[in-house]
């Protein structure tokens, strides 16, 4: 169905993306597929900076008119920055999921964990099977 799946990020089965920003940092958000499934996002519950997460921990909450979903930590990490714009403009998650709709910037505990996640091709295949 033609969802946007940029090549320069990694993907999880829970439909998060994570982008290596170099220097042991990475940016996290939800995929185009995820925002489409959720429909209009009305609220994003962001983590605190310096909060630590293990891979798979519930890290954030995205609320749409249809449902409330957890966003899980794609890797072990510590939050260094959050996208405060989402507090007043949650629609950015729908409009630009990989850009202005990013959610958290994190410091990676182990950058090699990124390699274990799906690349764009794997993820396209994964979502096709899921749909």
């Amino acid at each position: 169905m033609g969802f946007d799946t940029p090549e320069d990020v990694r993907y999880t089965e829970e439909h998060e993306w994570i982008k290596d920003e170099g220097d042991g940092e990475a940016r996290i958000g939800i995929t185009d597929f995820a925002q489409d499934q959720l429909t209009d996002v009305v609220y994003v519950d962001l983590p605190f900076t310096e909060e630590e997460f293990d891979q798979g921990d519930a890290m954030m909450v995205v609320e749409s008119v249809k449902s409330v979903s957890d966003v899980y930590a794609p890797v072990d990490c510590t939050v260094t920055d959050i996208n405060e714009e989402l507090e007043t403009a949650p629609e950015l998650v729908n409009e630009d999921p990989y850009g202005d709709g990013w959610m958290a910037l994190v410091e990676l505990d182990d950058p090699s964990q990124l390699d274990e996640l799906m690349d764009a091709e794997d993820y396209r295949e994964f979502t096709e099977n899921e749909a």
Partner: protein
Amino acid sequence: MPDEDRGFRQAYWDEPTLFDLDEGPQPSDQFPEGADHGLPEDLTREDAGVPTVMRSRVTRHFTRLAQMTYGVDTGTYPLGSCTMKYNAKAAELLAQDEGLLHAHPLQREEDVQGILELLYDLGDRLREIAGLDAVTLQPAAGAQGEFVAMRMVRAYFEDRGELGEDSRCEVVIPDSAHGTNPASAAMAGFDVLEIPSGDDGCVDLSALEDALSERTAAFMLTNPNTLGLFEQNVEKIAEMVHDVGAKLYYDGANLNAILGVTSPGAMGFDLAHFNVHKTFATPHGGGGPGAGPVACTDELEPYLPVPRITRDPEAEPEHRLDWEREDSIGAVRGFHGNVGVLVRAAAYILMHGSDGLADNTRRAVANANYVHQRIKDAYPAPGGDLKKHEFVASAADLEETKGITAKDVAKRLLDHGIHAPQTYWPMVVDEALMIEPTETESREELDAFVDALLSIADEDPETVTSAPHTTALSRVDDVGAARNPILTWDQANDE
């Protein structure tokens, strides 16, 4: 308009708020100007911020609003999990009894023996219905009942020195549970562990097995579950939970499916809450008022909240409020609970008697199965074919073939003068329409509901996706309302 035969049109008044109708300060027959009110000067003010409107206009205002609303007294209200049954007006009359209505919560015990007796007896009956040993009537709703029960479980393990960082710190909950379950457990200080449901929509025993350990304090279960399916393995589940030393909690939202036929106690539960406002036909909607009594086993009884109502026929007065319970988790709500609601529940139980309650249960289950059987080709419901008092149908096929979503079906039902079912919950079913007809719908009303659902499935998508057409308001901007809520009159006027 396809609905013209049925002739449903909701009243519509372009009705302003009372603030918009404010006529400013008016002479009052109750508080004549310059009268000595005896209040200190520095505690009085000229403008109370309350609009002044002529009595006739106020009456019209509320009558118009009432005409534009929809309730159980207007028509079918199949809102799953909410048990929107008809509330007998006789119970209403009893609750309006002068003596009950004007009793003050601070009156001396000896002067309110009647109400204490009524509440004590209600507790006794709820205890029997739950198949458990003790009851509190204090919690103000189901969610608070859950919270109280989880606090009790915590106190129980704390007392035994079992509560620790790696011990009795978790509450296990199936993914089909109501959102209040994890919220209550978390608020009571537990970590929440969610387990996936099996393909049959019931608890997956191996997932449960993996989740249970000495870390587990409780397993919270709704039975029948939110798909309206009876957990066939409930006795096995109780055994597994008890084998690791944890407590089994019964979310009573769906009690209307088993009331008088079986009980949480008989199934091995240690604690349970009632949603009095669902099962026992007290009015609810718009957030209240409700009541969420909690029943428990003798073992957990010491931890029930205060005050407890006691009875001693030898003593004077016979009924007392006992605040001196050393192990109690404390007070959770002011005074005696939502007494008005509890009186209605007591009336309901007495009006039906135990056989009547069981009859209601059977009828509620039959009604749900009747609707399910008639609509299942158009709206299949996952899980076993035999439902309890409710079921979750899916509009996923319609969505795929015609682009008609569960929300569109729900909106289109309004054109038939029927309230929407619960939608998009539980989240384990795509395009969920959660339907609970209750026992108080006649065969004719059920048929009209089924016919409406079937005709919607056959309609052209354009008509359905632009519905409702015959209500006071059509589609509202729910995204705008969620992103930018305007909650007060001042706010609306600042915009």
